[in-house]
């Protein structure tokens, strides 16, 4: 299963599900990263982590291991 951490830059994908412990995933869902939402990685920090993603018209920074908890589909 594809996760957000594996997606190449600028590719639009749709969120399928967010995994992880309850408090963790609730936070991401509430930020609007719920199933069906379109996301794209727009940038990678110079040190390789975190990632900058575009979701619902805003830019968020999210760590790679957190992005690996977000399952996506093309």
């Amino acid at each position, binding site marked *: 299963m594809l996760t957000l951490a594996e997606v190449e830059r600028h590719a639009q994908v749709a969120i399928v599900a967010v995994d*992880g*412990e*309850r*408090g*963790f*995933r*609730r*936070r*991401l*869902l*509430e*930020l*609007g990263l*719920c*199933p069906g*939402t379109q996301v794209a990685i727009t*940038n990678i*920090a*110079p*040190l*390789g*982590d*975190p990632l*900058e993603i575009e979701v*619902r*018209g*805003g*830019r*968020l*920074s*999210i*760590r790679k291991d*957190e992005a690996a908890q977000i399952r996506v589909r093309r």
Partner: protein
Amino acid sequence: MTTVALLGNPNTGKTSVWNRLTGGSAKVGNYPGVTVERRVGALRKRPDIDVVDVPGAYSLVARSADEQIALDVALGLDGEPAPAVVVVCVDATQLVRSLYLLLQLQELGARCVVALTMTDEAGPAAPNATELAHVLGCAVVPVVGRTGAGVDALATAIITAVDAGAPAAPVVRWQPSPALAAQIATVRAALPASWPQTDALAVWALQCVGDDELIRVPAAVRAAVAAAAPTAALDDEVIAARYRWLDEQVAGLAKAKVDRRRTARVDRVLLHRGLGLVIFGAVMFVLFMSLFAWSEPAIAAVETAFGWVGDGARAVLPDGVIEDFVVDGVIGGVGSVVVFLPQILLLFFFLGLLEDFGYLARVAYLMDRIMRTMKLSGRAFVPMLSGFACAVPAVMATRTMERQRDRILTMLVIPLMTCSARLPVYTLVIAALFPSHTVGGLSTKSLLMVGMYGFSLVTSLAAAWVLARVVKPLRAKRLPFVIELPPYRAPRMRDVVRMMGTKTWAFLREAGTVILACTIALWALLYFPRELPAGSPDYQAQIAAAPSPEAKAELEHARDGALLENSYGARLGHAIEPAIEPLGFDWKIGVGIIGAFAAREVFVSTLGVIHGVGDDEGSLRKHLASERKADGTPRYTPLVGLSLMVFFALACQCMSTLAVIKRETGGYRWPAFVFGYMTVLAWVSSFLVFQIGSLLGY
């Protein structure tokens, strides 16, 4: 008194709107139970209405006490009256995400007014306010927090809503599944009578209660939630239902895509792999140098000014205890508070600029990779860096971190950074006790100084790593570390200056008073009983008969040394000698360490007085280098010097730091912990250095 609360996502312009609504004159305090700033000001148009500025939140769902503030304020659960109206700041460029919070508030039955901010940035993407108001069922007023456009209309809308006074009914836009409805019923029955009896509050409890650090949640509610056994599926259902409604009803109101091209262009440079890091380094260099070096003239000016005031007071007051108390205790004490202002003002000037510009979030983004190795977030970078100049402003800067756990962990390690007040101590010790050699063209003395910086960096990083694992309240929760990268904006000098003022005033009022009291207490400790020990020569007569000014000064230094030696502080120094002897220190160093509690650099002057050489550092160096033990060997060897430097690097010899930590954590628990762990660390390390060094024959 009627209150109105301003809620909204972080960075949506709440504080800007609040400043416009109230004129910016704030009563700033803390929320009960947590040290998060609470600002209250009277609405300009209606001084009987208080407006409360609340820290930004994406949701009312909370895990920690500081996230709970939004709910507590919205519903008046913290003892303050419930607000008559909640003004929700909604970022016009982030419509759907900002409205998520509004839905939660409406479900809870809060009477809401929407302030649609950032309409200037949204441009054609901004929704039509009338259409939005129709969909949301509440007043929507477009405003521009920066210019104040629309704020009058917002005030009118707030007043209308307050005066309408009709109780608002909960508005729920989704249907719970039968399973969820049963869970809601269970929990709702357990809600205390003092809480609003709504389904939404039951949903809130089902989402938050469990693995949490919330305060004031009744046991009955906890038990009911446990009985209902909520799972992750509940979160999916609730959150997806709200977003579904927003996507269907609201998303279409934004007619265009927000133009982010300007920000993207700037980001291409500032977040660039090479150039971005170079610019980052340059910005941090300027920030650091301004605190470390460029603040020096201002600090010197403060010291000179207080010196003048002291001299002036000496000139008019009669000699004696009162004079010494006023000059050394009170004026010196106030000086030791004011001396922090240049660095505090400078740091908050830079922080304000960087934050307003949008770069502070990028600093966190750039440095996150490094900081997380210590279980900290990128937001800890600037406070930690500032710690190399002075821990006091650095601790104050931890407020830029949203999580209390991160703030506290950062505060615990900041005092380990080599602050500029340690330099005079290192300089004295290195100059007096270490021989000059050159190794590969570099002098050993400067290598030692660099070594002390490296040592402090390594220990502070290691301390963060360890503390994050062993201190229970600091264990990292698996929470996503999401930062919003806001669009770049031109900084507004007025807001920056206003924040500098607020911070300075809070420091003076809350930490300054503690620092002043401690300075006076310390002064008294090293001053009284102000008697020469029995059998001392008659200094007064000898000084009067001194043949030359040099002889007179020497006698005065000897007398001051004898007076200090007989003080309660020095007796304490003697008393702790057995404890510090294994570190290679004698009681005189002990007295210096006690004196250094006022400020580390005071160590040098206290040591000068106790050695009877006054405050001339040159003579003190010679004196230290030539002091012998009974057996004729040097008393202060390079090994003692190294042990002393290690002690100063690690011990929390600074009551001002402890005073600001007390202010920033809202109690004595954390400052006591900092003092305790650092003292133990310092003692053990110096012990090892001295004992191992002695065994090796140094």
